[in-house]
């Protein structure tokens, strides 16, 4: 069975040392993939220690910027083409230059919407929330959340304490 531990730290240096030590310690049923940093601001220096964690928002954006203009132009052109039997005074039924304006707007709108959808999916929000949280994280503390086998929890607890954690919260996974 795996359990969670959340330790709070006052500064980035201590949190960094904890991550280094967790990385160097070989514990059964534990890997760095199971470590989550919770912080009031983004800390790229700390995130680097967790290894590569890809972000997929760009893929959603790509889908958006392809889908938007194609759909937009199709909508506009097909609406204009529905008047194909009307006399247009020699002008084209589907005039491309003015249609580009709306195609551009659809390109942006679809790109924005898909990016935001991608962001919400990337956040896994709302719903899939991390099990342990402390409101001090949104103020000025840095939290390190670890999931590990019950047998490894005491060792991790010791590592947390060794680096002057302010508080350790633990919860056994049901």
């Amino acid at each position, binding site marked *: 069975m795996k359990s969670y531990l959340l330790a709070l730290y006052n500064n980035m240096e201590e949190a960094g040392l904890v991550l280094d030590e967790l990385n160097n310690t070989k514990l059964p049923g534990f890997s760095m993939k199971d470590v*989550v*940093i*919770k*912080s*009031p*601001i*983004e*800390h790229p220096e*700390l*995130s680097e220690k*967790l290894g590569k*964690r890809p*972000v997929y*928002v*760009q893929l959603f*954006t790509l889908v958006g910027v392809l889908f938007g203009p194609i759909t937009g132009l199709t*909508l*506009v052109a097909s*609406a*204009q083409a*529905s008047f194909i039997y009307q006399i247009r005074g020699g002008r084209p039924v589907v*005039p491309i230059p*003015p*249609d580009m*304006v*709306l195609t*551009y*707007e*659809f390109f*942006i*709108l679809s*790109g*924005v*919407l898909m*990016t*935001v959808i*991608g*962001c*919400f999916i*990337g*956040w*896994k*929000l*709302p*719903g899939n*929330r*991390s099990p342990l*949280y402390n*409101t001090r*994280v*949104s*103020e*000025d503390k840095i939290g390190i*959340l670890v999931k590990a086998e019950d047998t490894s929890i005491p060792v991790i607890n010791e590592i947390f304490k060794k680096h002057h954690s302010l508080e350790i919260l633990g919860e056994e996974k049901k």
Partner: protein
Amino acid sequence: MSHMIKHDVPDDNEIHIEKKFVPKDLDIDKDVSWAQINKDVLRSLDRPRPIFWVIFFAAMALFSFGVYCEKYQYDNGLGVADLNNPQVWGLYIATFIFWIGMGHSGTLLSALLHIIHADWRKPIYRYAEAMTTFSLLTAALFVLIHLGRVWQFYYVVAYPNERWVWPNFSSPLVWDATAIGTYLTSSLLFLYTGMVPDLAICRDNATGARKKLYTFMSLGWQGTDRQWATFRVTYMTLACFLMPLAVSVHSIVSTDFAVSQNPGWHITSFPPYFVAGALYSGCSVIITLFILLRYVFRFEAYMTMPILNKLIKMTFAIAMVWNYLNLIEYSTVWYGANEIAKQQLLDKMTGTYAPVFWGMVFCSTVMPFTLLIKFVRTHLPTLMVVSIILNFGMWLERIQIITPTFGHSQYPWTWTSGWWPSWVQFGIVAGSFGWFTMLFMLYCKIFPTISMYEVKEMVHDQSKMLKAKGVA
């Protein structure tokens, strides 16, 4: 050779210069604690100065008067607004352009300065973004109001119906509706996405109904490394979308005029001219709101004088761009072959509309030069008056684009003189200012106006920078 020696051997002078670095012009106090930032901003949601309520209720009264005027116009027709041929748009479309333009600096300040990593935007961009959203909501009202028959607005909206009747997609009016809809949606999402980490802070400190609201809106944000990484990419991507969108929206609004054959409108420099004007008026409003919020919510520690100074410099630079494009516009007409356009320009300067034209020149061309005076830049009441004058000038600019063209068009028998908007038009315009201020103040009371997490980042980066320079 000497260049190489300079780099290989430590230079005493260089070290000396670095140590002499004095952080007298820091944008924000580097010693302010993160907890204090939370406390100060959250306090603004609970206890603003009493002047907040004075402004809020004054705005509400103004809005109520606007609603009364609109109802009066609705019941009696556009005649009560003195709108008739040839003056069919009056203040409504002028004010529509004014409000659309005002929203642009929110995007400029937020998106462009974010892309170029200008950190000084961090304490002030949030209210600018909110200003964008509320300006667009106000602008959209004028599109409906100027129709008279407000229920017919759907003529420009594309929706499937059983008769297969679509709007004319080649018309700039349909482009307007689409562009404004896109801009409003994107700005709202940009504002909301950027606010999520702060809503989580509010959630962690609120009780009762507010806690429920913030819990719902913060979507369970916990500030995990994955959430931050996703957030960064999203925010940057949205900023990259918002910049060209903002330019396109006001270009499209200008295209309403530029694609017509009317004198004074058929000018190719209109799109950049409109965009510059939009940024100019938006920047002056940002200065006004800066001073207002700084006082009302006690944000002196975050909305600092160095940041205001940068904002003023940006406004001045944009004002000069706008002046240049204005000059280009008049030169094009003056040296062009279109005699009617030339006569119309002369009429603007010397005829019926001369007070509006010269009022604009004084307020928007001459007044920005006062920003070069240190006293104006540092004395907040004076600066507030100047920023309001600049903005009033930009409103006059919108009027002098529209009214003279209708009053001095291609055909002499349509020429009019002495046209003056009725009290109904003025009432509705005043009501729109009440509506905007009311929404804006309400927003400031419910949502954090200063981006707490970004100010923390700013303090963090500043401390790191000073440490590296050996000052802290």
